[in-house]
């Protein structure tokens, strides 16, 4: 078996058809994860009784276990739970009617939520406390002060971490193949096994992921420069 450079291109083209799926999984899980992460971060920053401990445990547990475990737990656990509930209430609804992709998205959102909550929390805490006090002093309410003063600055501070999380979730989306969702990696596997050309197919997949990662990094660094232009007189 010799390396066939032409087949790298062939499989690269074939993999492009799975690109939307990978991007969809990544964007949805990071988007939903961002919402979960914000809530968790606020619960912990404002030290809401009981809830802050639950939030802290959630973050520690998710960060202490592999993403693959979250996927398997949700993929095997959630349908069983749904069926048990619907059985107890005598509904006709079963988990089999839910597409697998939904479980993938739920589990990855939970994963992303924990990591993003740490990013958001550190970003918010990195903003000088005086900024919030100044906002109160000119008569802003807490939501206003958070939304208009703290969050924009926190966003600028945590941009590198956000981009890391986004890239992490992009790479993590390759795990979805274990539950038969056809994203880039699963597609590469299919291309590899049907043509018996593993090396070429995985080189193509690696190039595709690498390309997207570099694009994200470049995009974020441009954004970072832009944001910091207006931020010069602020925290930094």
């Amino acid at each position: 078996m010799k390396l066939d450079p032409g087949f790298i291109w062939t499989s690269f083209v074939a993999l492009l058809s799975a690109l939307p799926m990978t991007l969809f999984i990544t964007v949805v899980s990071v988007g939903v994860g961002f919402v979960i992460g914000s809530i968790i971060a606020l619960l912990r920053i404002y030290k809401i009784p009981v809830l802050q401990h639950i939030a802290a445990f959630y973050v520690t547990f998710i960060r202490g276990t592999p993403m693959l475990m979250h996927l398997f737990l949700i993929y095997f656990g959630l349908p069983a739970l749904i069926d048990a509930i619907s059985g107890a209430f005598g509904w006709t609804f079963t988990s089999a009617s839910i597409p697998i992709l939904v479980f993938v998205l739920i589990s990855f959102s939970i994963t992303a939520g924990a990591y993003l909550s740490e990013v958001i929390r550190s970003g918010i805490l990195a903003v000088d406390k005086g900024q919030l006090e100044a906002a109160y002093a000119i008569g802003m309410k807490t939501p206003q002060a958070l939304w208009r003063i703290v969050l924009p600055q926190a966003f600028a501070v945590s941009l590198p971490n956000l981009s890391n999380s986004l890239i992490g979730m992009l790479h993590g989306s390759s795990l979805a193949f274990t539950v038969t969702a056809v994203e880039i990696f699963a597609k590469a596997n299919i291309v590899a096994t049907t043509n018996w050309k593993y090396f070429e197919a995985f080189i193509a997949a690696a190039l595709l992921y690498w390309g997207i990662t570099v694009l994200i990094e470049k995009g974020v660094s441009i954004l970072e420069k832009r944001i910091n232009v207006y931020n010069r007189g602020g925290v930094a």
Partner: protein
Amino acid sequence: MGRRFEFVYILDFIPKLLGYLQITLFIVAASVVLGLVVGLIVALPRMYNIPVLKRLSVIYVSFFRGTPILIQLFLIYYGLPELLKGISIDVSKVPVLAFVIFTYALHSGAFISEAIRAAVGAVDRGQVEAAYAIGMSGFEAFTRIVLPQAVAISLPVFANVVIANLKDTSLAFTLGAMEMTGKSQTLGLTTQHFIEVYISLSLIYFVVSVILERLFQLAERRMLRYQPELASTPSRKRQLPRLLLPQFKKGGEQA
């Protein structure tokens, strides 16, 4: 899918999975040790600005940070034997575990090289100058002055790499390596109690990563023990890019 949930199975599976913990830990330890060597080799050309090699190390780091570990696993598992066959070395009898360790070593090497670079950059330039001033050679100054300080600074990042590596080992089962996750697959298939298996497995991973984290915290405290001004340590860390998380965690602890 599977049978009814039964709690007993969780307790039953934990000791069975723990029997394979040593293999998981072996993968982590071997790949991190190799990764340290790789990381240092990759970081050196960029720290000392060696022409060509510097470029190569940038590409190396970008590639291993820019592709999923799963792809790297498959690429090396299927690609390396073919490349080696080209120079007539037969690796068909090499166990899967060797490929897994090799991949994780290259992967963590890329991250470790970035940690080394950031940490060495964070050591005050005056330290090296002072070392030269009392007559140390470049090598001495690096190994005796810069490195010990850099190690202490980079410890939180290094801890993250090790824990991430532990979690990534769960992917080795895709190549059929028999570590904890691989065992969990067979246990799940034979008993049809998948949820229980994954709960037990998650608990083990969780406990191991918490223990690792604590150990690294202890090590960090010990290494920074002889620093005269503990208060200035966080500020030095703030110079490192993308270290907000560990730094912030420490801040919370001291409060």
